[in-house]
């Protein structure tokens, strides 16, 4: 198998550039460590591999002020707080005294994208090890100054304490470039049994501002002299702007400028509502030529499986002695689905003396800088991209596009800060969707009710069209001198894209897994939370239940029978126990019990979810009554944050699973707001969700931000099958589909 590397990050790292200077010399580009100098082998852990200098992660000022740096972006998953806990723990400083600075191309390491549930593993690990090594350096410096052996020194509350009780504050100890050293491969990490801050449910640092009206989001930025821009997007993919007499628009109240560059059209006004009115007027005079290019939405299985594909066998196991007796086949489908951020994308950009600064809720400040620089035909060094929180994104939504929009408009208004705010309709129709997928499964059971052979095929687009190059950004695609959309690539295993979690975690004597990678992308698509894992886990875990039914086995017992992984077994048992799962137990009238399990990417957190679903037989309406989850994400840093993530995964996945599909006609996306793309509302929120954590002190951090989505989907589908006796295989499991299945 390939090394566990994300394609995009590797591409970014291949970009070249020298390893430069520390904070103590200058903050500018201190963190541009793409293509780092050869680090000592073996390499230090996490993102220290690619950004090995300790002062890329921890900075101590002369006044004792301590800052931890991460190249990852806080997206509402709460890791900013977790990183602060980690740094405080390993440095022995009070939690509140630390600051955490997140993704900024002038200040933080290049950690590529904040994606794939990798933040704790990459950045959390780097911060933890860097903090531990900084602490060691401080102890060594104190020992040197007092001319005593370092062994008997300890640290406490931001100071090194000598054996005879003398205190040397960190700020006094740290000399100019003392921390500008490369990390060692090994750190003296604290024993988890001594943790004071890690492992505690520390309240999130960002919540107080968010619940009192503080400035918390890029949407809340107000720079002096800032103007408001709105985009007039084409009405459909590929539409050409044939005519646009904007002379009247520029005379409207407050309008500063109309910006047109090919098919890119925007208007800028002094006040926000003036910009909105001008957008409406500009939209009315813009004439577009559209081309019908979209496939048939009501026949997605055929559409997806008929597109040319590049096929590869990604897993093969053979044991001819295992012979099946009963064969079961099934096919599952997932439609295009939307990230559907509650706050449409927004960005602020300002061009000052040839330097472009962009404030954005992107997941990747460095890749965005590269894309924006390419689009503007300027060197990347003249562009600074700073992450500011936006509404939750759940993957590649409109954030990067809005950043490019803002930069392109700001270029036309030198000196003036420009705020671009997308409309609801733009976010819904232009965001890159989670791609439609089809899976076909076939398996046989032997005479003992064991799976003897397993065949799994998945058809999918790529799951990342994220920036790096300009061609990934709408503004660059729409310019008069456009940038071509880059050729899609499958994301490499073991993380994978369309084939993420396609390889079963269960042990089957014969197994054959094929990935049909589809390069053609009729709809604009990219990374959506958990990528292919959502559909692959939905398929595998639905099919496991179908096989369990055929074998006459209990679903939990059937899974355990095929699973060797001890941590996987533990979460299954924990979830079953928490739910009160009992073999052969029938759910109450019109209700069903469901169970599902996965280890995200087969290398991150483990998650098992049991659900109880009620189905109204008259209307077909499904209602998730309760869910009980168990999760193992290695060493837990913030248990409440972890529980929050899993609760959210279950509720979000339930919405995807029961309600959501992008709609379109032959030319346009037609699901353009919350009426045409309905999602979960409060009347469908379950009565209870319980999350049980299996903590693994001393074990590596495992990402958990996406581990629940797949299991939640399958668990709900299995509960619906249990309640109705009907198996639904095409997402979403709408009340109409359920009603039709009941009536069939």
């Amino acid at each position, binding site marked *: 198998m390939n090394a566990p590397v994300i394609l995009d990050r590797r591409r970014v790292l291949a970009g070249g550039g020298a390893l430069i200077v520390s904070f103590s010399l200058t903050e500018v580009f201190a963190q541009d460590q793409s293509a780092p100098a050869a680090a000592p082998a073996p390499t230090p852990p996490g993102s220290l591999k690619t950004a090995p200098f300790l002062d890329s992660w921890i900075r101590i000022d002369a006044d004792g002020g301590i800052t931890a740096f991460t190249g990852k972006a806080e997206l*509402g998953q709460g890791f900013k707080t977790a990183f602060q806990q980690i740094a405080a723990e390993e440095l022995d400083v009070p939690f509140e005294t630390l600051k955490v600075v997140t993704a900024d191309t002038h200040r933080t390491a290049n950690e590529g994208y904040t994606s794939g549930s990798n933040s704790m593993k990459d950045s959390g690990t780097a911060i933890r090890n860097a903090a531990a090594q900084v602490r060691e350096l401080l102890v060594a410096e104190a020992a040197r100054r007092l001319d005593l052996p370092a062994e008997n020194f300890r640290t406490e509350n931001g100071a090194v304490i000598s054996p005879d009780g003398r205190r040397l504050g960190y700020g006094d100890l740290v000399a100019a470039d003392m921390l500008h050293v490369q990390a060692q491969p090994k750190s003296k990490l604290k024993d988890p049994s001594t943790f004071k801050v890690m492992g505690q449910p520390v309240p999130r640092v960002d919540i107080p501002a968010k*619940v009192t*009206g503080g400035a918390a989001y890029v949407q809340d930025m107000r720079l002096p002299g800032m103007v*408001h821009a709105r985009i007039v997007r084409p009405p459909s993919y590929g539409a050409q702007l044939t005519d646009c007499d904007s002379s009247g628009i520029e005379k409207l109240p407050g309008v500063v400028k109309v910006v047109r560059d090919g098919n890119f059209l925007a208007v800028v006004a002094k006040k926000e509502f003036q910009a909105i009115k001008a957008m409406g007027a500009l939209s009315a005079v813009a004439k577009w030529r559209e081309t019908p290019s979209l496939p048939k939405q009501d026949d997605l299985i055929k559409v997806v499986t008929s597109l040319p594909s590049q096929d590869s066998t990604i897993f093969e196991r053979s044991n001819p002695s295992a012979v099946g007796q009963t064969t079961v086949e099934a096919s599952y489908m997932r439609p295009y689905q939307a990230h559907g951020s509650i706050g449409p994308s927004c960005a602020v950009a300002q061009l000052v003396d040839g330097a472009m600064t962009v404030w954005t809720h992107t997941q990747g400040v460095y890749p965005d800088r590269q894309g924006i620089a390419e689009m503007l035909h300027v060197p990347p060094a003249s562009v600074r991209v700073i992450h500011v929180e936006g509404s939750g994104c759940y993957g590649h939504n409109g954030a990067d596009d809005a950043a490019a929009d803002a930069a392109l408009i700001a270029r036309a208004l030198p000196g003036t800060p420009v705020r671009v705010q997308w409309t*609801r309709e733009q976010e819904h129709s232009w965001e890159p969707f989670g791609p439609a997928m089809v899976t076909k499964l076939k398996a046989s059971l032997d005479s003992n009710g064991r799976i003897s052979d397993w065949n799994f095929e998945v058809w999918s687009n790529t799951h990342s069209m994220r920036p790096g190059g300009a061609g990934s950004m709408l503004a660059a695609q729409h310019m008069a001198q456009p940038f071509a959309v880059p050729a899609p690539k499958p994301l490499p295993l073991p993380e994978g894209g369309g084939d993420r979690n396609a390889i079963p975690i269960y042990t089957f004597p014969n197994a054959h897994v094929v990935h049909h990678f589809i390069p053609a992308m009729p709809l604009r698509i990219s990374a959506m939370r958990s990528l292919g894992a959502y559909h692959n886990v939905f398929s595998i875990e639905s099919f496991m239940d179908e096989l369990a039914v055929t074998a006459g086995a209990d679903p939990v017992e059937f899974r355990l029978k095929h699973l060797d992984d001890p941590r996987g077994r533990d979460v299954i048992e924990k979830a079953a126990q928490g739910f009160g799962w009992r073999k052969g137990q029938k759910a109450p009238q019109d209700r069903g019990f469901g169970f599902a399990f996965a280890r995200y990417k087969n290398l991150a957190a483990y998650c098992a979810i049991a659900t109880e679903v009620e189905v109204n037989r008259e209307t077909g309406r499904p209602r998730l009554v309760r869910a009980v989850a168990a999760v193992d994400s290695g060493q837990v840093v913030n248990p409440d944050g972890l529980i929050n*993530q899993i609760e959210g995964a279950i*509720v979000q996945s339930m919405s995807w699973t029961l309600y959501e599909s992008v709609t379109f006609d032959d030319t346009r996306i037609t699901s353009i707001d919350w009426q045409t793309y309905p999602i979960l509302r409060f009347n469908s*929120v379950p009565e209870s*969700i319980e999350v049980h954590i299996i903590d693994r002190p001393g074990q590596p951090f495992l990402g958990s931000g996406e581990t629940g989505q797949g299991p939640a989907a399958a668990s709900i589908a299995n509960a619906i099958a249990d309640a109705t006796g009907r198996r639904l295989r095409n997402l979403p499991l709408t009340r109409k589909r359920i009603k039709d299945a009941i009536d069939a």
Partner: protein
Amino acid sequence: MMTLKVNGHDHQIDADPDTPLLYVLRDDIKLNAAKFGCGLGQCGSCTVIVDRKAVLSCVTPLVLLEGKQVTTLEGLGTIEAPAPIQRAFMEEQAAQCGYCIAGMMMRAQALLQKNPKPTDEQIRAELEPHLCRCGTHMRILRAVHRAIRLMDTADASSTTHRSAQ
């Protein structure tokens, strides 16, 4: 020019009468809490209280607000001195990205002012116009229940205080 009363203060507003309240709050008065989510009255992110009712500020034009009292989340309390509803959301850690939360809190606040002891069913029904994409719903419900208790305690202590005088 029009006078708009927001969080107890009069503001002279120079904006077209059809300007939705949301933009007056954000652009003219520089308040953050009311959020743009859809501009269509579909998601609840922009909810504020006008007199005693929760309204969707993105579809409420300025012209309708003459002489009315507008309350935003900023008007309830501060980080240092949070209102019960704010304390409740902090204590329950009832946010992920938090973008929808201010609107949810204003709807809940209006509900609790009208009905200090709503049932769980009533709370869910009241929050029906509000969307949350992170899936924080369970915590939001818990936070509203906690706010009920906190307000109850606050009322009880102020009653005690008054009777003591």
